[in-house]
């Protein structure tokens, strides 16, 4: 039986109008191809076409050793590279029953929260850019640039860090790390009020995002959405609170839950998460324990036979790594449950019935990273 790749036909039927958004797009979030059926300005149906950046990471992982496939994970959701590495590392530590030293755990958490800040900053800048306000983009990169410089000093690179590794972290902290982070947080706390005034309080921005793309709580749960998208609809799903790892249980931070579910609420949730991240960094930065930065681990890792699942909270939701091992050097099956894949499912349901202008607002606040969807 012939199964078509698209249900929306190529020719226009009378009264309806089919257009393509992407894969090359000026306000590009990545290479996502949407076929949209329109009736004038209103959207009738959306069909996403993926695969433009499908690199076969899962298939390749079956031929690579565990430590080698960690390098591929940074390239999935590259804005949450540390979290992706952490997911694999935690899974291996769980399988081999390795105890990570306290210093390594604290360093990991600091890097994770800095990465979350950087990711939300880039999201904020491009949300403003999509809405037509060009200036927030530059302001957002001011902070992000500083965070990336901190990463470069300690981890060696700016984007795909591969710093968090099974057993701990790759290198010890750079001597200027603590001071640089303290200066950054001090400046950030002042700047975030500027950002609130520029975009959050702007009546035009509010009018374009309020009551646009409402995702109800039942739909969010049914679709498997996680992260700020689900938290804005009232679903409690922060992995840092539900299944804490690496010392999150000792920290004091709030999980941001709001109930309205529209684009403006998703925006507010992420702004509030930035403030919580700063609060976490404040608690950690002065109390980095001394000790080893990495536990001893064998050269070639063989996980005992069985299945493993590890979840972490990336900037966009719950990332899950599912490994089926049969005792060899390489995994038998390695599956990544990526948050953007489920959040993409939400797009089809919440964009129906809204206008094209609203589609931009919805995509800006859903914050999709396409390499994460395609893997």
């Amino acid at each position: 039986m012939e199964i078509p790749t698209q249900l929306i036909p190529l020719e226009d039927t009378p009264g309806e109008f089919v257009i393509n958004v992407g894969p090359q797009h000026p306000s590009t979030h990545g290479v996502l191809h949407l076929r949209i059926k329109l009736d004038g300005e209103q959207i009738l149906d959306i069909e996403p076409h993926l695969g433009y950046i499908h690199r076969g990471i899962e298939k390749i992982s079956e031929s690579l050793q565990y430590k080698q496939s960690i390098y591929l994970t940074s390239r999935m959701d590259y804005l949450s590279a540390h979290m992706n590495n952490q997911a694999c590392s935690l899974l291996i530590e769980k399988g081999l029953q390795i105890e990570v030293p306290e210093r390594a755990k604290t360093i990991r958490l600091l890097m994770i929260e800095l990465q979350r800040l950087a990711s939300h900053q880039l999201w904020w800048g491009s949300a403003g850019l999509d809405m037509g306000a060009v200036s927030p983009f530059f302001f957002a990169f001011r902070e992000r640039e500083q965070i990336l410089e901190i990463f470069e000093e300690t981890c060696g690179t700016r984007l795909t860090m591969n710093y968090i590794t099974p057993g701990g972290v790759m290198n010890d902290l750079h001597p200027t790390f603590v001071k640089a982070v303290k200066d950054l947080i001090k400046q950030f706390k002042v700047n975030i009020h500027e950002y609130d005034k520029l975009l959050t309080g702007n009546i035009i921005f509010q009018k374009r995002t309020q009551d646009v793309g409402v995702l109800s709580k039942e739909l969010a749960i049914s679709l498997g959405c996680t992260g700020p998208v689900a938290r804005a609809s009232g679903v409690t799903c922060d992995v840092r609170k539900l299944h804490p790892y690496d010392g999150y249980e000792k920290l004091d931070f709030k999980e941001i839950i709001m109930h309205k579910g529209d684009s403006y609420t998703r925006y507010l949730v992420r702004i509030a998460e930035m403030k919580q991240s700063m609060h976490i960094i404040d608690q950690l930065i002065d109390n980095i324990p001394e000790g080893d930065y990495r536990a001893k681990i064998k050269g070639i890792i063989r996980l005992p036979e069985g299945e493993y699942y590890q979840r972490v909270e990336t900037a966009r939701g719950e990332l899950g790594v599912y490994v089926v091992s049969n005792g060899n050097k390489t995994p038998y099956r390695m599956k990544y449950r990526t948050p953007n894949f489920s959040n993409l499912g939400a797009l089809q349901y919440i964009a129906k019935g809204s206008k094209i202008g609203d589609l931009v607002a919805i995509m800006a606040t859903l914050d999709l990273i396409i390499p994460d969807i395609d893997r």
Partner: protein
Amino acid sequence: MSKEELKAYLELTFPTCKIEETIDFPVLIVEKEQLFATAFQLKETPATQFDFLFCQTAVDYTTRFEVVYHLTSTTYRHDLVLKVRFDDRDHAEVESVYNIWKAAELYENEIFDLFGIRFLNHPNLRRIMLGNDWPGYPLRKDYTDENILIP
């Protein structure tokens, strides 16, 4: 319910199915024919309420396929793994759980695309990532490709 309590409950409620456990979750293995009914029961029963499907994937053990569902409950916060095993590799067909969890739509499209397992009663089954004319199903263990990058 904790992992042990859940295992006990499952042994009571589904006496015909196999119950195993991994390091994280209890595992319930059902037959293909009872998949939809079991999944529906797991979602609707007030004691379990598994309303969140957070991962659905397939594994190719060379003689058989296994479709794996990871479920959790937003009210009780307990997790479960549901598995379906079948041997038919040429006409692999399973019932879709889209009508229970909408998340299954994209997951099942991906599994169909990469493994070739068809899902019955799926609203829009299509090859979502690879094109319509891609030969074969890459994630199967017997997939051959002339351009092997990593032997």
